[in-house]
């Protein structure tokens, strides 16, 4: 299954949000742990100190005293209820959350602060304890002094509140900053995808027939490869289009001449005063219509060969056999020209290709050599294996092709000036198209300097054949 499409901006925001939650969560957890540790140290030390102060001030006296009821040390009314948190001249409401008790070893409560419950704040064992009394959790320090126990305690909620506030004071700016960051990143992302949208718009608003390259200014370099590739593609499409257009123009042009000739000769036949003149004109009309048919045929071959690129049904083909078969097929033509074909280089040469295309390639090369070669004359065909490549060459005697024409003769309908020989104008273009589809190459050279022509086709040899 292909991966689903997604929005770059949303993905960016979501990943930012998740990573922020992870980072802030761990930070909060760590801050809380640090606050816990630190306050624990301070609170414990304070409880212990308070116990010792109490011991020094009143524990010894209480030990000896005989009391009807425990002494209660009152807090001034002015400090307010323990729910407030504003200090005043008398003290602080939080004092309600700090308490102490003095117990005799026998378990009699001797004294307590008014903030302390009458039940015991904690076990009578030395050291720190956490104890629930009067429905509150207390942190307690117990200290034995002679015959009494001094319990100094503080409500746990005080410490918890402190921890929370410390943690919150650390984490809340981070959360706010994170939210602000999300908004900013969103804006940046919106801005960042704007060139992509501009590109999409510029493609959407194009004239469908236009193959002009896309030109946008102020493009981020990350988008340039996309645009460059797109423009390169458009360029290739345009090139293919205009090649097609040129071909169609040339084809129309080339076909008009034989068609006009058919027309003209038939009109002459109609106007002919005598039977033999009529026949002569009809004969010429027939000849012209044969040419038109041959040109149409070659045009069809060319367009079929071009259109079937990449869709061949390939098989292992013996090129030497194909050559021999075609020489047989063309024998009547060659005999009428008093030409023969000499084959050089016996041996097998296998090519992985579509047989019909290979046959067309060899046929066109032989027909070309027969047409432009000397009559009578000899056409030389050689087949060789060279470094994983099959080299096929077809040579004829006759006029050499001028150097400046050598690359142009493969252009559709290009004809060498001074040559009035009739050809379809596509034979060598078909050769070149087939060769390039087979990842091979074709070139033309003089057979001997200044004389004749040799077409050399190089094709990749089939990798292995048993």
């Amino acid at each position: 299954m292909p991966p689903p499409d997604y929005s770059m901006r949303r993905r960016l925001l979501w990943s930012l949000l998740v990573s922020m939650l992870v980072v802030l969560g761990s930070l909060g957890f760590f801050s809380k742990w640090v606050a816990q540790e630190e306050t624990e140290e301070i609170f414990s030390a304070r409880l212990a100190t308070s116990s010792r102060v109490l011991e020094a001030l009143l524990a010894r006296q209480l030990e000896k005293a005989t009391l009807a009821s425990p002494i209660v040390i009152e807090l001034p009314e002015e400090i307010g209820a323990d729910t407030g948190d504003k200090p005043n001249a008398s003290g602080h409401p939080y004092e309600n959350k700090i308490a102490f008790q003095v117990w005799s070893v026998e378990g009699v409560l001797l004294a307590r602060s008014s903030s302390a419950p009458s039940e015991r704040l904690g076990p009578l064992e030395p050291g720190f304890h956490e104890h629930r009394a009067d429905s509150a959790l207390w942190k307690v320090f117990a200290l034995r002094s002679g015959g009494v126990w001094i319990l100094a305690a503080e409500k746990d909620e005080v410490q918890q509140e402190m921890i929370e506030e410390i943690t919150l004071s650390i984490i809340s700016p981070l959360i706010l900053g994170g939210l602000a960051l999300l908004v900013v990143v969103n804006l940046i992302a919106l801005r960042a995808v704007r060139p992509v949208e501009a590109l999409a718009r510029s493609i959407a608003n194009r004239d469908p027939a236009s193959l002009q390259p896309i030109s946008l200014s102020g493009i981020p370099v990350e988008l340039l490869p996309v645009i460059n590739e797109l423009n390169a593609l458009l360029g290739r499409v345009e090139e293919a289009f205009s090649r097609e257009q040129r071909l169609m123009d040339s084809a129309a042009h080339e076909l008009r001449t034989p068609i006009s000739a058919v027309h003209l000769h038939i009109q002459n036949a109609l106007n002919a005063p005598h039977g033999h003149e009529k026949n002569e004109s009809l004969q010429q009309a027939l000849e012209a219509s044969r040419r038109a048919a041959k040109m149409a045929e070659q045009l069809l071959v060319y367009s079929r060969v071009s259109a079937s690129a990449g869709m061949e049904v390939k098989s292992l083909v013996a090129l030497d056999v194909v050559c021999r078969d075609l020489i047989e097929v063309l024998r009547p033509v060659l005999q009428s020209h008093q030409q023969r074909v000499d084959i050089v280089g016996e041996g097998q040469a296998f090519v992985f290709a579509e047989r019909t295309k290979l046959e067309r390639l060899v046929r066109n090369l032989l027909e070309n050599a027969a047409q432009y070669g000397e009559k009578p004359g000899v056409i030389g065909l050689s087949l060789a294996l060279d470094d994983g490549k099959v080299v096929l060459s077809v040579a004829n005697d006759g006029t050499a092709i001028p150097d400046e024409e050598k690359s142009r003769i493969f252009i559709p309908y290009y004809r060498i000036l001074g040559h009035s020989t009739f050809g379809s104008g596509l034979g060598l273009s078909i050769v070149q198209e087939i060769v390039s589809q087979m990842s091979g190459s074709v070139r033309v050279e003089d057979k001997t300097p200044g004389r004749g022509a040799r077409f050399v086709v190089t094709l990749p040899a089939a990798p292995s054949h048993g």
Partner: protein
Amino acid sequence: MIAAGLELALTRVHYHVSRVSSGLSAQSALAAGHYDLVILDLGLPGMDGYQVLESMRKAGSLVSVLILSARDALKDRVRGLDLGADDYLTKPFELDELLARVRVLERRRSQQASNSLTIGDLQLNIDSPEVSWKGRSIDLPRREWMLLKLLMQNPQRVCSRQHIQDALYGWGEGCESNAIDVHVHHLRRKITPDVVLTVRGLGYRLGVNS
């Protein structure tokens, strides 16, 4: 392929045609003979039609030129006409239209208002091989018809023997030394003895006055 058919069709309507198959031989033919019209294909081997036209006009030639080409693009037509062609016809074409255009150019050359040339009782239509004298229709062979047409197109002028020979016989086409005298003799016999006057030492001129 087309040229042979055109030559036949033009010859049938009594034009004298020299057919050449390359730009260079066209130039030699134009240099050597006298022509009234060139039908020029652009896709010539050796030297293309534009070059032939350009060099003709550069050399000062005023011969009428009709381009007959498969190139039908506007730029090709404009280029041909601007290089000095008098007309441009694209393939495929109708033979009758081509012949009509050839007559247009011929009329323009000889400053005729219509296809019909009438001088006195003598009448000749350049689109038909018939000639009439005093309402009587006379059938003339090609060269006699051509000679009469030449004299009628130049009614007040003396045509030299050389001019007549060029008009009746093509480049490289042999002509007996007395051939023109024979044609003149035939015209006088078939129409009237005064139809052609001999201007001694100069040539011939039409003997009929309007």
